[in-house]
């Protein structure tokens, strides 16, 4: 028993030094040297391309609905930590999904409200646009989910639909190796490109019309 205890303690302390501390520090050092952009969170001037944000005006392309959701769902309900990994606009949150079951009345009613909201804005929604994600901060939508929003964005920004279609198509990331996962559009990158396009067309980004 004493021998077991002494060996356990020694092995545990060695492990803590090597597998806990040294592993983390060596890994961090290497990552920061080789891939600093990724290791620090893929941060750009307007946020991370890997962490969703609520684009809640009709002049932007929208991402997955989360509780910060721009749409009909009541933000105060706080069903998930949507777009809100730690703190968003000062509000506390954490990553996570809604966890509503497939026969949940709440899910039925929330989805109904989301579909109604999209219809009011002239959009025939896809499943991405009326379901919440697994992380609650999904940065992506499917290319089709971006395309269906064109009537809404065109009306709000004045950018011709054909230009928006070309913009979306340029922003499509194909699935890795062509088949791992699904093709996506990064909503932040798409909206950054949209702001760029508006500036080029002489429209004023940042102002609703």
């Amino acid at each position, binding site marked *: 028993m004493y021998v077991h205890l002494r060996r356990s303690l020694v092995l*545990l302390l060695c492990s803590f030094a090597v597998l806990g501390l040294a592993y983390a520090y060596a890994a961090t050092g290497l990552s920061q040297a080789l891939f600093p952009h990724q290791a*620090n969170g893929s941060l750009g001037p307007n946020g991370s391309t890997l*962490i969703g944000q*609520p684009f809640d005006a009709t002049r932007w392309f929208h991402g997955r609905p989360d509780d910060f959701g721009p749409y009909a769902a009541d933000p105060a309900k706080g069903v998930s930590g949507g777009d809100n990994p730690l703190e968003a606009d000062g509000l506390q949150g954490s990553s996570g999904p809604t966890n509503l079951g497939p026969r949940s009345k709440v899910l039925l009613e929330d989805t109904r409200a989301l579909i109604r909201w999209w219809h009011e804005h002239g959009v025939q929604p896809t499943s991405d646009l009326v379901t919440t994600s697994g992380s609650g901060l999904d940065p992506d939508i499917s290319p089709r989910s971006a395309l269906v929003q064109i009537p809404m964005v065109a009306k709000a920004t004045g950018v011709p639909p054909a230009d928006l279609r070309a913009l979306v198509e340029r922003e499509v990331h194909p699935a890795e190796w062509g088949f791992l996962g699904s093709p996506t559009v990064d909503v932040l990158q798409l909206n950054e490109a949209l702001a760029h396009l508006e500036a080029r067309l002489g429209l004023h980004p940042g102002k609703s019309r």
Partner: protein
Amino acid sequence: MDLFLTIVVLVAALAVCWRFLGTYMAGVFEGRITFLAWAERPVYRLLRTSPEQEQTWQRYAGALVVFSGLSILFTYLVLRIQGSLPLNPEHLGAVSPALAWNTAVSFVTNTNWQNYAGERTLSYLSQMTLVVQQFLSPAVGIAVALALVRGLARRESKTVGNFWVDVTRAVLYVLLPIAFLAGIVFVAQGAVQTLAGPAHVRDSLTGFTQVIPRGPVAFMEAIKQLGTNGGGFYAANGAMPYENPTGLTNLLSIVLLLAIPVALTATFGDMVGSRRQGLALLAAMAVLFGAWTGFTTWAEHQPNPAVAAAGLPHQPTGNMEGKEARFGDTQSALYGVASTQTSTGSADAAYDSFNPIGGFGLLSGMMLGEVSPGGVGSGLYTILLFAILAVFIAGLMVGRTPEYLGKKIQAREIQLAGIGILVMPIVVLVLTAIAVSVHAGRVAPLNGGPHGFSEILYAFTSQANNNGSAFGGISSNTAFYNVLGGVAMLLGRFAIMVPVLALGGVLAEKATVPAGPGTFRTDTPLFVGLVIGSILLIGALTFFPAVSLGPIVEQLSHGRFFG
């Protein structure tokens, strides 16, 4: 089509693991591969042990229990005093006693059930302490599997190996190098790895501000999957883009969590002197895995009933509620199956929002005892229990003393195998019955109706199987669930490991009888079928009533929704 190609790549990668990693591990644990002896020797010197100092099964089990007990205590203490320790950039306070107990047990038992949101609860130092257990707990799993395999391979031996040597070698030769290489891929793809604290960002397009927690995530992700642990840095686990950024890392995760359990069947084959014996076990695993992948991915490719009833017309994508756009419906389901048929329990989607049959696929994968291919080490020793049961049933049918690999299977062996197989169902069913009988248990589910029952059943199935995935709607960070869950995890781990080690010891002492014309062969399709039959029979007999109250009745409730 995409799913098909993904599975082709997965099978190819696992075939390489089986062929090379399996042989490599056999070499390592039999002491033939020694290129890291320079790192091993100082450890053995500190421990005052050596590979030549072999242990009886009793001493082996004693070392395991004491080591795991001390690991729980150490992890508990770090979580309790994290507020006064360094590496805590967000100044998080102590973890509550019940939660610290649950979390410490959870990581030491390879479960990684998480009743907390990592990014808001644990300091970097606490996360690193959990990573230590993410290396050690799979190493302990491998050690137990090795002791049982040695029991089968050796003749008239009093000893089953040296626990300290087996654990050290598993970490140094297998877990650490593979995890480190995989970690680099995770970072390159976009997983974060920094100690710089959270990022503060402001979107100049909308004026929106965000504080995004970061940390040493990518390399934790690597060992989380490789060690079939499953506990991630963030609450959203593998759905969080900072843990699992792309379709490629999603596939890599699935490969990593299946790699060692699959390869260990080859290691087993090498150690008992016949690869075909290992291949037979692998075939049983593969048939179950394939069947479950088939119906679970099919189920998730169907529309979500609530979303369809809300008026969304039929879509090319299936059930996207709780799934990430970059993974899609079927590849999230594949990840779920891999995660619940091993003891991993990581999640790249909300399992709670899977369609009823999809959720059943995940739940029942665990209920079969996690043998296809199961956790690191635990998968191999659990399927060996079923193999022993299968030869026993075959022996009863022909009226002959059953043998497995030349060892006579007698009353003692069957008793021990029976205990090892029945502990998990008893723990799951008894604790679920307690939870649905008391108020503290019944208030926890988020969803109403049969799905609420499924959340409770899933919680105890997951913890007793050391899986760690959840129907996450359940509010289980309460004293009731933290304490009871801890008990489930401890029993599901050690009440199985100790009988397995005893079985290893008893078998090791036996002589080997040479195979004769009447010997029932255990490397044939007939035997594979018998093993699969035993697994399905025991799973169905024990769990069918419980499952019919949950996912089955939910699937049959056409047009009904629950508040």
